[in-house]
């Protein structure tokens, strides 16, 4: 298997690098900067780094004020704390007031595996996606998160960016340039479409390999932007393959799976099987074992592909 690279380190370094270029960037953290790795920025630019202590709701409002003053604040803490503890701050003062705040949820999905379900973020995408004006982005690997940082910073408007704690194999090569709202075809195929986001992209590629060995040619789409969805890419894939599987490290309710189901039901109804956490709280354990246990194994993806194909009319 390819070498695993720390996504959070890549994020931290990218933020620091971009911070050197853009003096408008300020960074906030709620006493977890060593974990989120916003500490890289903090060490390089202490005058533009604010550790507000264990106070996530207040941190988001503080960032709103900084944005009103013309800054580009990056707000960092664990994804569950950011999106749940500060949900109303985000909805009212960031999304509705359309302030230029960048919300970065660290330790997305089950990646803080040993801290257990209190620290898992399994409904953050659903919560963020429900809010008008928010752009919702999930990074797949170290390359993607590093490339996304400047793009998110320069996008005029609020963004939620989910980053994983895990060390993950790089899916994207050095020449990859993501674009907000656009997905990437990682592999072409006509039998079924596998749409994946976040660290599940790598597992999905493995599932596609396995399917190929079984004679099924899967198209693999990597989708970092959950909102706004890349309609064209999805509609074309649905039209070509007539069977879709969504793969995400999130509840099967409200996230990528729902977004794709909503779109296709309105525009091109085809079978959509959702791979993700089956609407339950997970438990404590090793990360890969948790993903396997809770419905996000490579086998789960291939099984879903077969189900989707079987339903195809």
């Amino acid at each position, binding site marked *: 298997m390819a070498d695993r690279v720390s996504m959070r380190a890549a994020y931290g370094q990218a933020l620091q690098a971009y911070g050197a270029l853009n003096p408008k960037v*300020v960074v906030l953290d709620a006493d977890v900067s060593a974990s989120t790795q916003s500490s890289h920025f903090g060490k390089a630019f202490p*005058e*533009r780094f*604010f550790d*507000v*202590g264990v*106070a996530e*709701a*207040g*941190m*988001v*409002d*503080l*960032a*709103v*004020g*900084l*944005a*009103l*003053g*013309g*800054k580009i*604040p990056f707000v960092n803490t664990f994804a569950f704390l950011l999106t749940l503890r500060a949900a*109303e*701050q985000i909805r*009212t*003062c960031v999304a*509705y*007031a*359309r302030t230029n705040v960048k919300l970065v949820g660290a330790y997305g999905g089950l990646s803080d595996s040993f801290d257990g379900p209190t620290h898992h973020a399994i409904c953050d995408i659903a919560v963020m996606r429900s809010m008008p004006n928010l752009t919702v982005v999930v990074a797949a690997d170290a390359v993607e998160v590093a490339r996304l940082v400047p793009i998110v910073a320069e996008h005029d408007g609020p963004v939620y960016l989910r980053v994983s704690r895990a060390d993950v194999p790089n899916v994207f090569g050095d020449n990859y340039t993501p674009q907000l709202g656009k997905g990437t075809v990682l592999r072409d195929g006509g039998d079924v479409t596998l749409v994946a986001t976040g660290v599940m992209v790598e597992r999905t590629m493995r599932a596609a390999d396995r399917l190929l060995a079984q004679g099924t040619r899967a198209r693999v789409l990597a989708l970092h932007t959950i909102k706004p969805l890349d309609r064209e890419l999805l509609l074309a894939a649905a039209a070509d393959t007539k069977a879709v599987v969504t793969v995400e490290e999130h509840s099967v309710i409200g996230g990528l799976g729902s977004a794709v189901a909503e779109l296709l039901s309105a525009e091109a109804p085809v079978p959509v099987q959702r791979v993700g956490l089956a609407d339950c709280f997970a438990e404590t354990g090793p990360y890969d074992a948790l993903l396997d246990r809770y419905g996000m194994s490579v086998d789960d993806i291939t099984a879903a592909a077969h189900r989707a194909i079987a339903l195809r009319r």
Partner: protein
Amino acid sequence: MVYHSDELVAALAERAAQLRRTAIEMIYCAQSGHPGGSLSAADLLTALLFHKMRLDPANPGWPERDRLILSKGHAAPLLYAALAQRGFFPIEELKTLRQLDSRLQGHPDRLKTPGVDMTAGALGHGLAIGAGLALSARLDNQTFRTYVVLGDGELQAGVIWEGALFAAKYHLDNITVIVDLNGVQLDGPVRDIMPIEPIVDKWRSFGWYVIEIHGHNMRQIIDALDEADDIHGQPTVIIAHTTKGKGVSFMENQCTWHGRAPSPEQCQQAICELAVSPDAADAAGPAGGGQ
């Protein structure tokens, strides 16, 4: 401290009375809105918008302007009345409060209303946002000052105390917070709903400089605002003892008038009562309305 003439004080007090009348008319016209907290904050907002703050109504986005965050956003009618009379938008537009396609939303909306610096309405946000703005100003060596007006019931929200810690940690002496301590919230007296006293000691414990005033005494208000300018290395909070529904006999201290529109007769009576010049005794009197 700067000397303020009696003439200025009287003119501001009269302006406040006028804003109160306008706010009541707006709420009557919309048949919806919050009179109690609009009336209690009238003198405070008048002092800010017609005297203290550096503003340019012709240029609402002027980067050097002082900022106002009305955290108790339900007092929007009074804020709108003041902004209109200050020239940010036509006075006729006040009639459109809470109507479809209006720039005057039920609660302040920074994207819709000229002169509104921040969206508000869900209680508790303003202090931390104000701290962020003040921090931003300091980072850019900008000289504008940030004013935040809080309700007293709002002090029950924990995020207020998060913001209080931030402002103290960063020694934000370019923010002035004013608590409209009218002692009454939606469901009843603050002391029954959830006591917040000792309020002065609380703010001091959180590291703030505290000034306590009578919030309907215009001279005390403008003096306190000046005093806050001279405090260095520490954020300042002005605890303004006010009366909910101030100036309308049947609304005063009544939680039922927190968010209710008057009938035609009530509106008429309120306007009549508010037409009387501000009571000199009251303007000079001791703190009375709060807890």
